[in-house]
């Protein structure tokens, strides 16, 4: 809310909340604790007039209106009183053009908060614009928690589920799989109440809908009793980690790894349920590693062998780091350095092989420095879920906002596709209906439901029309 108005000299973004601990390890190792960060060059919004841009600044729009409805009734009134395209946004954390429209861009900010909990059914109902971090804190106050969280918690629950947002954990599905009920304001202004017990097909369509069915007003989720996690982080040569990764994913509730480009090293991060009382928050300064990796890139980027040598010389593979606290305090982090990202999800059996090829592709670009993320997600049955019908591994590549990122898409997409990958709906990709319909067996079923909800196509912008219809 308030300004981070001093250039952040000691803190920079880490690829995920859990990976935020990498900074501590590298800092202890000696070389990587003295970086001078560079402020983001992301584009600033217009000083006046109606303008919208996403978090990274890549997607921009000049909408006809920017309403901020504060109730379901106001959502209905909005639907009934406006004409033309209408798109909702939560936090603007999608890098694809899911939101931009010349029509209305609807903020969910005022539709926020926990509405009720049912400790018999172990469910919680919340307004659609509730941010994940706020939701986690509100649930915690009730002795409850979500089963898993993604690595960023400013997303709204509606935005997160609608784009197939996920955390990591071989036995843990993406957030939308824990949705048991939805209230949706349809483009006609009516409220539709869905529950998985009685609306199986509609729920399969609505769990991940890209905001194409209407405006979600409320979400009911399965919840667990609150729990603590124990985080462990360790650095190893990437070949060693890649051999162990499938086993580690089976051993830990949450497992993920990050390859640090041009270092030969990866960081493994595990989280398991912890019942001890000696709690410890993640260490301060943990998120400095990105600035350090960027500095190595800036100074030695033209000399990949020297960059590799310098990194290997100063990374101490024997270092580990730990934290023990509430799940939501460990699984997520704030990202102070803006970036653009592409992420695909490949069948788990092909995950490691695909990652090896992605690493090779990224390391053909000396400008790369962001860690490459590798995570595990359990399959589910939502029709447009990237994890539909199959456990998958996600592989994500990033570039700092303001830096070239085309190569993330062009060089990596053929590799992902060769491994039967599906793109993350909110991360950069160039797939259209022709490709996507071959990836999703219930594609036509989803289109039929969408047509039923929104025959006039008011919830579709140019990007959605390309995704859903254009060859």
């Amino acid at each position, binding site marked *: *809310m308030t*300004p981070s*108005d001093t250039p952040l*000299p000691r803190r*920079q973004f880490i690829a995920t909340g859990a990976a935020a601990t990498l900074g501590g390890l590298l800092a202890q190792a000696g070389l990587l604790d*003295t*970086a001078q960060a560079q402020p983001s060059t992301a584009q600033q*919004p217009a000083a006046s007039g109606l303008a919208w841009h996403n978090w990274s600044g890549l997607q921009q729009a000049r909408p006809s209106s920017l309403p901020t409805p504060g109730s379901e009734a106001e959502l209905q009134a909005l639907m009934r009183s406006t004409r033309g395209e209408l798109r909702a946004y939560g936090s603007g954390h999608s890098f694809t053009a899911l939101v931009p429209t010349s029509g209305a861009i609807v903020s969910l900010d005022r539709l926020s*908060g926990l509405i009720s909990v049912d400790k018999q059914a172990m469910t919680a109902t919340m307004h659609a614009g509730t941010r994940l971090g706020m939701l986690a804190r509100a649930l915690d106050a009730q002795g409850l928690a979500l089963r898993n969280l993604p690595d960023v918690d400013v997303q709204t629950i509606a935005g997160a589920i609608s784009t197939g947002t996920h955390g990591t954990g071989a036995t843990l599905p993406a957030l939308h799989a824990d949705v048991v009920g939805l209230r949706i304001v349809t483009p006609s202004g009516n409220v539709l109440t869905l529950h998985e017990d009685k609306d199986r097909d509609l729920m399969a369509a609505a769990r991940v809908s890209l905001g194409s069915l209407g405006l979600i007003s409320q979400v009911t989720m399965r919840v667990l009793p609150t729990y603590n996690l124990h985080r462990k982080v360790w650095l190893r040569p990437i070949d060693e980690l890649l051999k162990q990764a499938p086993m580690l994913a089976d051993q830990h509730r949450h497992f993920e790894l990050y390859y640090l480009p041009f270092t030969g090293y990866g960081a493994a991060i595990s989280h398991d349920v912890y019942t001890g009382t000696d709690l410890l928050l993640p260490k301060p300064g943990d998120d400095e590693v990105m600035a350090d990796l960027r500095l190595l890139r800036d100074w030695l980027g033209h000399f990949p062998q*020297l960059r590799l040598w310098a990194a290997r010389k100063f990374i101490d593979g024997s270092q580990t780091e730990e934290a023990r606290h509430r799940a939501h305090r460990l699984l997520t982090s704030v990202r102070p350095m803006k970036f653009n990202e592409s992420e695909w999800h490949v069948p788990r059996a092909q995950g490691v092989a695909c990652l090896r090829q992605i690493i090779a592709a990224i390391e053909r670009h000396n400008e790369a420095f962001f860690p490459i993320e590798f995570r595990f997600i359990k399959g589910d049955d939502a029709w447009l879920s990237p994890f539909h019908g199959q456990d998958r591994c996600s592989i994500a590549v990033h570039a700092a906002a303001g830096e070239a990122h085309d190569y993330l898409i062009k060089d990596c997409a053929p590799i992902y596709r060769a491994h039967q990958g599906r793109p993350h709906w909110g991360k950069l990709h160039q797939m259209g209906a022709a490709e996507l319909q071959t990836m999703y067996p219930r594609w036509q079923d989803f289109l039929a439901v969408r047509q039923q909800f929104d025959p006039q196509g008011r919830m579709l912008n140019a990007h959605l029309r390309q995704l859903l219809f254009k060859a």
Partner: protein
Amino acid sequence: MTRIKHFWQIVAGVVMACLSACQDAPPREPTDQEVLRAEALRPASPDLAAKYERACLACHGVRSAAPLTGFAPAWAPRLAKGADVLLTHARDGFNGMPAKGLCSDCTDDDLRGLTQFMSQSP
């Protein structure tokens, strides 16, 4: 071979020297207790408290690169820039902070009030 190795050692030494030179003195980091205290702080005004809780708290109430609520060492260099600069950064976004700080319905007065709340010691 020896010459190459020697060259790399020199380069590494230069890198280390420059890294050291670039190091600035960071402000004191908040303790776990200060972070957990910040998570519990709220503005006195119910309206501002609601906006704070659904927006600002996400970054300023946890350990992150954003200045921590109620933690004076992090706010001192920001406050030195003046209230107008802080308002501009809050409204337009700055570094990792999104424009209006995730509060699309916040007015300039809200942003001023929230900044004042977060930057004051409890």
